[in-house]
């Protein structure tokens, strides 16, 4: 079993199974069993098989740690065929990862010697397999294809996505069973005052879910950024369908539109990034690839971090040339010969690149920012975060799967995947965006009362954490948090779904004390809450969030130490942790603790069926333990963990600033695990979280203080937060209305300017012809003809007198005429007329 062919096959199959399920459900639909009940079986079995395949792939990956000497063989072998994986980069650090790892992985980075050792290792690119399945188009040297890029991150993401998706499929079977028969939608009021009565759409839900899984896995497996974009859009449209699942509700269809259009705004930036890459690098491929003539071509990563530069970021030649096109044209004009110019340009490139102008650096920044823009849209980062809370209009399993665990995390995933390309400036921008997002979202979550919205803002906030982590160089921290967050956030959402299922309301103000009615839900959700706030016994053990969040805060602290100017980032992370703890426990207390607020709701509440709470239990197990270092298995994060295997080459080093921000330092992530940083960071994180929980307990658990008082006291702030910082209103004013005004203007110009012009021209021409008709045609041409006729007529009238009818007069006329003729002839006769 060689992984370079097995892994793509396994993952590809896992990827395509949901598509098959989608196709089956689309074509058969309601005919799948009674009201399409079998659709859930189809979809669930597809995604379950996908999970099994992914798990096998994970085992293959772990079991295929290549021997050091394999390196070169792989490369030569791979390039011999086109369809097989084109490039295999196997690194020689494998044996260390496969080895049973030291238990105290938290500490092991403390030793400097080992630190250097690792740094040396990671100067090599990570093990990855890439290749193409088929071409979308090829133009000269440019080609766009559907392909794959498999590394540790891919495999991990596959496992995570398929696992959570499987849980959610099961959960959805229970949650959506209402849709198996006719439904009365109480949120839709018809014109006659009644509620909408409609047929159930059970199968359609699973159909969209399958399509979503396919698209999401497509993003993960994508071998090039264009393919990412393709599936990026596809998950967007799935999200659109799923948010708009209850399309009869106006709010749902609006939310779906909003989600899609806001995402498109992000995509707009992403396209610009794609263009910047495409126009200068001429490839979208992550890994290296082989062209049709068998030449090795560098992928994006190799171009940005070439081997000869020790995998450090360098403006690629293509970008330098693209930026220096005027100079290139100058050279061409001077030499006049393309080949000669080529060599001349090649000589000039280093000079251009490193000169004061930093040719091409701007392009690199644009590319980075552009790609990040897409991530901002998809991951609901500031300023495009507005869609995600509205997206909660969708059914809760969707919120759990799409809008917390997977799709929104795709933005973070892409930032992680594209990490090698980001310059320090871009990373700083990412960090700031993440920080702003996490703070804004967390503050809004404090005042939200809709249980799902609280979770939605929490999601936005956590995504901000991830972005922040990535932006300050904590690659593993960010990705790790992505994974752990997926587990506990989907757990929380499903728990909330269970609550909603029981109470038929989203409003927490009508809940309370539900833990007696639905203990499974309550305590699994408590696990989720603890996980998200990063609860744990410091330095000993904790929930999964403990590890990932602490890693982020450590890195933030490390970053702040290096760059005191940017200490706000650390403050945001730490403060955000406190707020997170507060609102999460506010949620839990309001829902499950204390006396019920609404007796009627409480009476009706009941525990959900087994098919719904079993996935909760499974997920809570993972929410607790996914960050643990279990014996016999590699850890997920940490310096030797699974994610570390995927770390992009050359990113594990102190980066001393970019071309534009030379004083900025992105610290080495492993340095954040040293004691000097780890201890304060852990303590800060622990204390802030504890503080948050304490305040929540004071207000909502023990109810020592009335939140109403606080609300009244901070009325303006509350209102500000309740209106979500007025973002929606702001966007309405500065984007949507102007767009409509411009649209109306355009339509108006069409109708009033262009058409007027055309019609005016027509009228003018008709006027002219009328005038011609009236002033020339009728008086002159017609007049002449009429006059002639008139003359003839009057002549006839005159001659009529001669027409006496009397034979005798006629005779006289004849005679007179003849005589007159004679006379005339005799008077005017010219003898020469006779012809002789």
């Amino acid at each position: 079993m060689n992984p370079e062919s097995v892994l793509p096959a396994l993952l590809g199959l896992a990827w395509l199974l949901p598509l098959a399920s989608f196709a089956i459900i689309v074509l058969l639909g309601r005919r799948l069993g009674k009201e399409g009940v079998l659709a859930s079986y189809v979809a669930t079995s597809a995604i379950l098989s996908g999970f099994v395949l992914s798990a096998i792939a994970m085992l293959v990956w772990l079991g295929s740690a290549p021997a050091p000497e394999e390196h070169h063989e792989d490369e030569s072998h791979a390039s011999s065929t086109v369809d097989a994986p084109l490039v295999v980069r196997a690194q020689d650090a494998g044996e260390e990862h496969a080895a049973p790892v030291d238990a105290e992985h938290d500490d092991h980075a403390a030793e400097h010697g080992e630190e250097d050792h690792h740094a040396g290792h990671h100067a090599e690119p990570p093990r990855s397999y890439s290749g193409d399945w088929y071409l979308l188009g090829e133009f000269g040297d440019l080609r766009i294809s559907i392909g794959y890029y498999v590394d540790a991150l891919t495999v991990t993401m596959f496992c995570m996505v398929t696992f959570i998706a499987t849980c959610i499929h099961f959960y959805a079977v229970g949650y959506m069973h209402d849709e198996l028969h006719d439904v009365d939608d109480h949120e839709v009021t018809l014109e006659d005052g009644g509620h909408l009565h409609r047929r159930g759409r059970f199968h359609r839900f699973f159909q969209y879910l399958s399509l979503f899984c396919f698209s999401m896995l497509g993003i993960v497996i994508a071998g090039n950024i264009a393919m990412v974009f393709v599936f990026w859009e596809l998950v967007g449209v799935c999200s659109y369908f799923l948010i708009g699942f209850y399309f009869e509700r106006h709010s749902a269809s609006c939310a779906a539109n909003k989600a899609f259009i806001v995402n498109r705004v992000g995509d707009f930036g992403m396209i610009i990034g794609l263009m910047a890459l495409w126009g200068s690098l001429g490839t979208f491929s992550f890994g290296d690839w082989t062209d049709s003539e068998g030449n090795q071509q560098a992928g994006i990563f190799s171009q940005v971090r070439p081997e000869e530069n020790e995998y450090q970021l360098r403006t690629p030649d293509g970008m330098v040339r693209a930026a220096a096109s005027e100079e290139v044209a100058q050279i061409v004009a001077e030499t006049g010969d393309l080949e000669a110019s080529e060599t001349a340009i090649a000589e000039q490139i280093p000079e251009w690149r490193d000169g004061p102008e930093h040719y091409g650096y701007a392009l690199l920044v644009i590319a980075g920012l552009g790609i990040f823009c897409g991530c901002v849209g998809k991951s609901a980062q500031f300023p495009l975060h507005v869609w995600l809370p509205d997206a909660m209009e969708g059914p809760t399993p969707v919120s759990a799967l799409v809008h917390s665990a997977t799709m929104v995390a795709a933005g973070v995933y892409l930032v992680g995947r594209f990490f090698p390309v980001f310059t320090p400036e871009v990373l700083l921008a990412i960090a700031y965006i993440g920080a702003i997002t996490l703070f804004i979202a967390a503050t809004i979550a404090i005042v939200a009362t809709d249980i799902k919205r609280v979770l939605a803002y929490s999601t936005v906030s956590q995504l901000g954490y991830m972005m922040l982590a990535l932006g300050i160089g904590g690659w593993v921290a960010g990705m790790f948090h992505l994974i752990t967050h997926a587990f506990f956030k989907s757990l929380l959402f499903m728990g909330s779904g269970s609550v909603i299922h029981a109470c038929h309301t989203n409003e927490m103000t009508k809940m309370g004390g539900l833990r007696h009615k639905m203990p499974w839900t309550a305590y699994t959700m408590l696990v989720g809450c603890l996980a998200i706030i990063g609860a744990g016994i410091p330095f000993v053990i904790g929930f999964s969030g403990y590890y990932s969040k602490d890693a982020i805060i450590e890195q933030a602290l490390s970053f702040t130490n290096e760059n005191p100017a940017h200490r706000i980032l650390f403050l945001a992370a730490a403060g955000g942790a406190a707020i997170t703890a507060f609102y999460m426990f506010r949620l839990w207390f309001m829902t499950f603790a204390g006396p019920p607020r609404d007796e009627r709701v409480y009476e009706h509440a009941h525990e959900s069926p087994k098919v719904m709470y079993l996935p909760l239990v499974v997920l809570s197990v993972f929410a607790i333990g996914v960050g643990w270092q279990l014996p016999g298995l590699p850890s997920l994060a940490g310096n030797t963990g699974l994610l570390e295997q995927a770390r992009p080459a050359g990113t594990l080093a102190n980066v001393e600033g970019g071309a534009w921000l030379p004083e900025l330092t992105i610290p080495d992530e492993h340095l954040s695990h040293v004691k000097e940083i780890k201890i304060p960071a852990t303590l800060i994180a622990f204390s802030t979280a504890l503080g948050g929980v304490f305040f929540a307990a004071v207000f909502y658990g023990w109810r020592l203080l009335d939140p109403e008082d606080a609300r009244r006291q901070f009325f303006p702030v509350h209102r500000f937060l309740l209106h979500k910082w007025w973002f929606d209103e702001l966007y309405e004013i500065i984007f949507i209305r102007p767009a409509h005004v411009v649209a109306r203007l355009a339509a108006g110009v069409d109708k009033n300017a262009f058409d007027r012009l055309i019609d005016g021209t027509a009228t003018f021409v008709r006027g002219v012809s009328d005038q011609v008709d009236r002033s020339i045609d009728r008086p002159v041409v017609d007049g002449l003809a009429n006059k002639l006729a008139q003359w003839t007529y009057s002549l006839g009238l005159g001659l009529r007198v001669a027409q006496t009818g009397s034979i005798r007069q006629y005779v006289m006329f004849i005679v007179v005429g003849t005589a007159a003729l004679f006379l005339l002839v005799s008077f005017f006769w010219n003898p020469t007329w006779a012809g002789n």
Partner: protein
Amino acid sequence: MSPLFLLSFVIFAPAVGALLLAFFPKEKGDAIKIFTLLVTLVTFLATLYMALPADGDAESGKFSFAEENVAEIQNVVSLPWIDTTAFRMDYLLGVDGVSFPLVLLTTFISLLSMGASWNIEKHVKAYCILFLLLETGILGVFLSLDLFLFYVFWEVMLLPMYFLIGIWGGPRREYAAIKFFLYTLVGGVMMLIAVLMLYFASDIRELTPDQLAAAQVELPEQETDSPVHTFNILALQQLGQHTGQFSHELLAGKSLQWWAFLLLFLGFVIKVPSVPVHTWLPDAHVEAPTPISMILAGVLLKLGGYGIIRLCYPICPEAGYQLAWFVCLLGVVSMVYGAFAALAQKDFKRLVAYSSVSHMGYVVLGMGVWSATAGNLYDADAWKMGMNGAMFQMIAHGISSAGMFFMVGIVYDRVHHRNLDEFGGLFGRMPVFSGIAVGIFFAGMGLPGLCGFIGEVFVTLSVWTYSKALAVITASVVILTAAYILWTLQRVYLGPAYKGPHGEALTPITPRELAIAAPLLAMAIVFGVYPMAVFNYMAPAVNRTVDDMAAWAQRTQAGAPAPETANITPPVSLAAMETPSLRDTDQNMQD
């Protein structure tokens, strides 16, 4: 089958069908429709036959595509047609990767829209006859290689369309038909002027034997002192690219080819249509009956793009080089403007029409991105991508816009209004139809996996190399497109209940309608998932066209190391191109 027979059959089968229809009794409406459908089907099958691999058999009439990597014009049919001392026109037909997909699209869309014509009840016979004549005209334009023949077919197509809109249209049909007619006629006249300008400036004696062979043309047997003019498009291309015959100054300091390019381009761009000469399109679409809208959007608009790629650039490369900014600007303005205008529409069909304006902007833009400049060493790859993307976009738009109009037509047939504010809830009432409609609208929106995506993305990506500002604007259109399409879908298909009149008429889609809509959606998916299905046929010829342009640019703009022209400062120098050829002719004369 010989090319002569096959190509002539494809062009004239509909016309012959129309002739036969003339003998049908007027009352037998169904028989007439069935016969017409059969004629379109036979034509479609004939083009499908052409699509089969030729296996190197040049006489088979089949079209050899990428597998043999044949980029040249194939299946050339050349018969003398009009041959007087002053004019020589040939019955010159041929097909290559540029025209063939469009021919296939034409016959395909004709077949489907004939199927969509089933509920035409008024003057069925006349309708069918005009319909078939229209098809003949369109196919003739795509297949003719003689400029004059091209022009004749161009005008042939105009009249049936005029009547089809003007008789079977909506309430303002006369206005729309006249508007359509005048616009197109103006374009046609501009084209005719350019055609004659080029004809009288041409002289094929200056071509080398290789070029003559490439142009499928022969010199007259006895040598003449007077110039040998030609209408042969291929010969004109060779002349435009390899000689300076069209480069002499004509008017206002601009060369003949500058003016010819402009005139041809304007003529075509009216057909495309681009802002600001697009206003005929919404009116024509709104008034035209559904099947005619399908033809109009699906095929007729493509004639403009086809003309640009076939005539404008290859014949007048220098003008294309100078006017690339104009072409691109027009494309981008159309995209943005069309999208904004679509956003404001209340009429369903009008909205789709404006979306056509926006989408066809991609075509113009993609054709204009002349990336082969000195700044990137005359690397035309981005332009190839743009041109291919534009061609693909034409096909994709042919599928998706025809589909969109058909979708509108289905609703209109039932409720007899198109006011977007009075729809809603169609998803609940007509689920299958709504599903297909959403698919087709998403194809128009450029969703990946559907045909619109490929063309739009390829064009968009190619723009960066030409102009970054335009590229950013281009990219921004994705937002607007999403906005108007989604808003439309929301207003029409989503929501709790249908709000307009005749709600009881909203019956599920009929099998006939399904039979028309399903192939469209299927094609949209196939082309979106496997675009190479189109590129295989198209790319070699398109790439060759671009390569020719790039080679021309390199030859003339790079300043071939001629010492006397090296000191000319403007990069676009006529002298560099003209000097050698003029010297050659001088020598010839002395000899």
